[in-house]
């Protein structure tokens, strides 16, 4: 299931709908089997820059086209569709399998587990194709893992852009990270707005 844009993007305002990249926690994005460590972060950018291939892109190691990309979000998101721009000459990925809300997946897990959804991809050099998700399964995604098992015949797989369309909720799935435990209360830690605004506050 794919839809192509046959209109100019200004009226449709595509860029805002592909804005889930802003909710990606880039510092925690990791990829397995990438040739340059850290290059995976370069594929998450704005819709307008999806064809901009001057910067880095994500490439797998020589002789092995498998790639595994782990993407955590800063808050729970609902994903409506995914768009992938691959490389030329058969280096585009040919299949995509995704897993939701599981971390620490490696290749043997990815190959044996049943994905939440999988697609057969097409060579999408202009980024006009999007792959719709079964929306009911993608309602509260805290992190997503993309597994690209093969390419279109080349020894390596190249990915220039990964885009997500959907909406972000403000909810977070994580446990509360910062809790301060006190043995005795320290009043300076507990100033209310009324107290700091003005006037004196006495603590006996």
């Amino acid at each position: 299931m794919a839809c192509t844009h046959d209109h100019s993007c200004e009226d449709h305002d595509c860029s805002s709908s592909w804005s889930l990249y802003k909710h990606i926690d880039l510092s925690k994005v990791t990829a397995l089997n990438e040739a340059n460590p850290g290059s995976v972060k370069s594929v998450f950018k704005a819709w307008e820059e999806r064809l901009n291939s001057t910067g880095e892109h994500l490439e797998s190691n020589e002789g092995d086209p498998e790639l595994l990309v782990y993407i955590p979000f800063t808050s729970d998101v609902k994903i409506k569709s995914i768009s992938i721009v691959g490389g030329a000459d058969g280096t585009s990925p040919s299949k995509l399998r995704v897993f939701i809300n599981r971390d620490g997946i490696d290749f043997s897990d990815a190959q044996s587990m049943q994905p939440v959804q999988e697609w057969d991809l097409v060579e999408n050099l202009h980024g006009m194709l999007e792959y719709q998700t079964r929306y009911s399964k993608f309602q509260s995604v805290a992190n997503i893992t993309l597994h690209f098992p093969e390419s279109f015949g080349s020894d390596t797989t190249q990915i220039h852009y990964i885009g997500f369309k959907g909406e972000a909720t403000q909810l977070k799935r994580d446990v509360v990270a910062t809790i301060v435990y006190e043995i005795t209360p320290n009043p300076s830690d507990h100033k209310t707005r009324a107290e700091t605004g003005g006037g004196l506050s006495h603590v006996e």
Partner: protein
Amino acid sequence: MVLEATMICIDNSEWMRNGDYAPSRFQAQADAVNLICGAKTQSNPENTVGVLTMAGKGVRVLVTPTSDLGKILACMHGLEIGGEMNLAAGIQVAQLALKHRQNKKQQQRIIVFAGSPVMHDKKALEMIGKKLKKNSVALDIVNFGEDDGGKTEKLEALLAAVNNNDTSHIVHVPAGPNALSDVLISTPIFTGDGEGGSGFAASAAAAAAGGVSGFEFGVDPNLDPELALALRVSMEEERARQEAAAKQAAEEASKEEKGGEEQDATMTERASEGASEADNKKIEIADDDDTSLQQALAMSMDEPTSSQDLQDTEMSDAAAEDPELALALQLSVQDSTKDSSSQADVSKLLADQSFVSSILASLPGVDPNDPSVKEVLASMQNQSEPQQKQDEDKAPKKEEEK
């Protein structure tokens, strides 16, 4: 401070009974393992370490990755030596153990002690290496013990297949007086990748090495900065004084050589080519007499700072030309502990017949068989003993004259 889960693969095969590493290979290995566990858990409290054995009846995991140092040390007791090491299976089981670590945020690392011969072929090891690299597992290899033909090559191939951005390392430890753990302390296996030494590694280096400490002067600058500074300053002053004395000795020797003689024909032929260049340098040094002598005196009176560097570069240029000269110069900038002996060495070299004669032979316009030359040379030899004292006397005398 990298957050890491480590699996250590121990070789407990029959080859570990050998005593070429004191007290036995197995004991040396155990000590190294203990040190590594300590270093890892200290560098980051959330790090975990696990241990497995590769030989014996089969690969056996002794303890899964844990941050409890006591558990790890306890499991090292009562290990039995026997069987043959199965490197491939060991690494694969280690990878599996790391896969099921509790904290998925930890980086994965395997440390292998390869003491016995490696049975697998290079291809199989490279496949394993590629799989590790794909799953971003780093591998450190400690190559010690047996060294049959292909082992080093195979391990290097394995490392090349695994290595991703220099996160994996290999260390070859030959048998010798140094303990296995001491050798490992200075390697990246202990110190991590370019983070600099962890505190544990640094203090372990200082403690374990005893007199021969990892720190200059045997004093930790962190513990006692003033003492370290005082030692460093005094050593620089001593070095400057030595260089001044060495310079004077070189000048005197070259002056006397111009009137010297040849005593040994065979040595000449051997060293003539090299000596001629060294000779030119010596003549240059003699020509720069006044300026360099003044420099030397100024140095011995003032603080030895910039001028010392000048001396160093001059000398190193000369040293590049001639290995014998390099030896002489090297001796002249030896440690403070050896200063009196090095002085004697320099003058001994100059008094050495063959050295002098080889230089003399290539001096232009000097006839080694000239009787006056012979006389001077003979007198120079007699002076070689008190010459050392003379040098030291001359330096302060000239200071007084100035």
